[in-house]
């Protein structure tokens, strides 16, 4: 096995070549916030923009899910400029996510809660107003519920459904702030040939897809 050695936050790490910084860090007990990354995915999706780190010699923070490790690389995960971006990115996500943990099916098993706790962030945004679209919940499927209001658009469910299992039930619909996950023409899930494999529910990092 080809290995490389790098330091993250001063800690010496030996890891496989071609690995992305994010996974090298997580393997070694260093937390980097992330919502959209899937290690097996050949091309990182890089949508949540929470996994920023600073690499010595680079002008600006980079996303650790897209950046490969290399020998002698020096990485920092909590510099001022990283925190500025991650704090703002997280606050943006939380500005369109109702903080209703007690009633949420993912309570205590939620990536957002984990990020807030690990990073010392508040769940409720302080600087941004909340803009909650109040979209209808899709309860049509007998086994699971899809609540688009809780969705963070990480794309994980779409990836497993389309790219891994080739079922192509889910995709992104609409544009801009109104973008959301849905079926073709936004029809109810029950009408859409979903065969209830529940893989999407399994990968959902928040409470958007949940077992009934």
């Amino acid at each position, binding site marked *: 096995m080809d290995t490389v050695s790098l330091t993250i936050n001063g800690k010496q790490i030996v890891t496989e070549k071609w690995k992305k910084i994010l996974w090298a860090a997580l393997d070694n007990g260093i937390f980097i916030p992330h919502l959209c990354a899937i290690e097996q995915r050949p091309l990182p999706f890089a949508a949540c*923009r*929470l996994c920023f780190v600073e690499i010595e010699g680079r002008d600006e*923070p980079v996303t650790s899910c897209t950046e490969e490790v290399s020998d002698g690389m020096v990485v920092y995960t909590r510099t001022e400029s990283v925190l*500025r971006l991650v704090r*703002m990115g997280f606050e943006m996500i939380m500005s369109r996510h109702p903080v209703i943990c007690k009633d949420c099916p993912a309570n205590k098993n939620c990536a957002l809660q984990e990020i807030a706790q690990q990073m010392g962030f508040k769940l409720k945004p302080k600087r941004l107003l909340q803009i909650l679209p109040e979209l209808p919940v899709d309860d049509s499927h007998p086994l699971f519920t899809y609540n688009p209001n809780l969705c963070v658009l990480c*794309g994980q469910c779409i990836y497993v459904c389309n790219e891994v299992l080739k079922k192509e039930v889910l*995709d*992104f619909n609409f*544009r*801009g702030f109104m973008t959301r996950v849905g079926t073709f023409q936004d029809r109810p899930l029950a009408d859409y040939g979903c065969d209830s494999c529940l893989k999407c529910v399994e990968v959902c990092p928040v409470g958007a897809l949940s077992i009934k």
Partner: protein
Amino acid sequence: MEKTIRGRLEYLKTEALKDFKDKGSEAYGAIYVGTATCGRSAGSMEVFHAFEEALKNLDIKARTFHVGCHGHCYAEPMAVVSKPGWPPILYGYLTPNRAQSLIKRFFNEEDPALEWALGAMKDNDMIPTVYETPRWAMEQRFLLENCGAIDPENINHYIARGGYGGLAYTLEREASKVIDEIKSSGLRGLGGAGFDTWRKWDICRGNSESPKYVICNADEGDPGAFMDRTILESDPHAVIEGMIIAGVTIGAESGYVYVRKEYPLAVSIMRRAVCQARESGLLGENILGSRINFEIVINQGAGAFVCGEETALIASIEGKRGMPAPRPPYPAKRGLWGRPTLINNVKTLALIPKILIQGAENFASLGTDRCKGTAVFAMAGKIQDAGLVEVPFGTTLRGVIFDLGGGVPPVIKASNIPGEKPITTKKKFKAVQIGGPSGGCLPEAFLDTPICFDTIFDTGAIMGSGGMVILDEDNCAVETARYFLEFTQKESCGKCTFCRIGTKHMLDILTKITKGAGTMDDLDMLQELAETIRQGSLCNLGKTAPNPVMTTLEYFKDEYEAHIVEQRCPSLECKDLIAYYIVPEKCQRACDACVGSCPTEAIYTRRDRLKAIDQEKCVKCTNCMEACPPQYDAVIKVSPLSELPESKADEK
């Protein structure tokens, strides 16, 4: 048939030239009417038919041709009339009636109707040429040379003017020689980023994977930009030739033209041009007998701004949702269907054959050290002569806006007194938004900036694809920023957090400020959002979206403050902060012009017969201001609302 590549092309050229002579355009004259999309919307098809009808009725044998766009949109419909014994003359502002009588006067009475002429197109002793006017004198037509001069639907026009010579040049040489030539021309991509074209080509050529692809980016999503459309509609073979040269050079056998569905004329002209090139043996298998193959597919995009971004464009061709992917890998390494892909803008590709034919030095002699050749701008907004201009890099913004574009037009209001001249009010230049919606808004202080990718970037704007919107004193900086951000915000693909949610917050704050409800803390938040969105977004749509806000915050901060602190819109544009008011001293009792113009019956007649506006009913449509005769000029706008003089309701 000739055996060599050059010989085969020469044969095509001889045939092409014969096509004109046989049909008598030299002996009897010819009329070239600009019928690209812009001409058509000004009525050029009707003018074209009027010409044809007049020729038929008077039994004149001159030929008529559809040609592309001259770029002088302000003077559409336009036509060049070429009559034996006379220099070719360009006419503008034509109507079907004028076309009819022009034919009669010129062809039957030897009177060229010079009152409708813009000038002659060639030096002569009789008629001043168009090149004596500043617009034509300062322009340097390298890229747009053929636009308006040839029939885009007839390949012979292109070939007769030396077209496909660049392809023959390429087929006769090693690929590295072609790349060297492009390198010494200094050409940088005109899709916005200004990336060295030769470098991109060289990376693709060096990649040993196959197949490879060439993509022509004709998405042109910037609102107000239309140079790519003009080229596709006016000089399609230049784009096709550029793509074939690219394919031959990098070793690709297929190419895609990704063009937006909203350009139906461009699509149909390109389709026809592709067929004609194929029939002439210039495209398809065994090009000009070289045993080299190249095919072109026209792919229609659904008109999403983000699909102009190269990785989103590739996803869209693959049938996926147009969402950008992180780079690297760049398309040159891993593009369409995961293969090496060369993606260039329409203008970049159209320049390639011209550079190869006219020589790299020729091209490089134009422009500056870092930016060679010419830049093309689409000027719109508060500008006298809107349209396309092509100038060498290094020309100043002032030169483009004032010398070529004629500067900011005055507001002209017809007098209601018969026989009196209209009343003209001069307007002051305020700023230019350069680079489309993701560009920046630059005030007067930057007018002497020489145009180049790097100098423009340093100001906080971008070259983008060359959109230029000119603003005058009546345009509010905050509203301008809000307007452009609204566009990018809506066009965001929704993939990444900063662009999807961040720009929405910026938009909400800007909207709040234009309504007078902003706070000074909002300005800090705007700045913080702008900077983090610029750094944090996945693709350049998000990274550049804050530009209009950042530049206006920097150069027009006082206007933001006026909105926030005084609830005042200094340009009197933001509807929530202005009120219309009829100045009693100026109102001429007897005139009812304003009353009739009001859609909501907000204007009433006071007891003293002066007019006044019921602010409750007023919807601020500006009709009354426009209706009020200019010699009275009694309707004014006031801001803030507290400036509104007490209304005298008792006088109702």
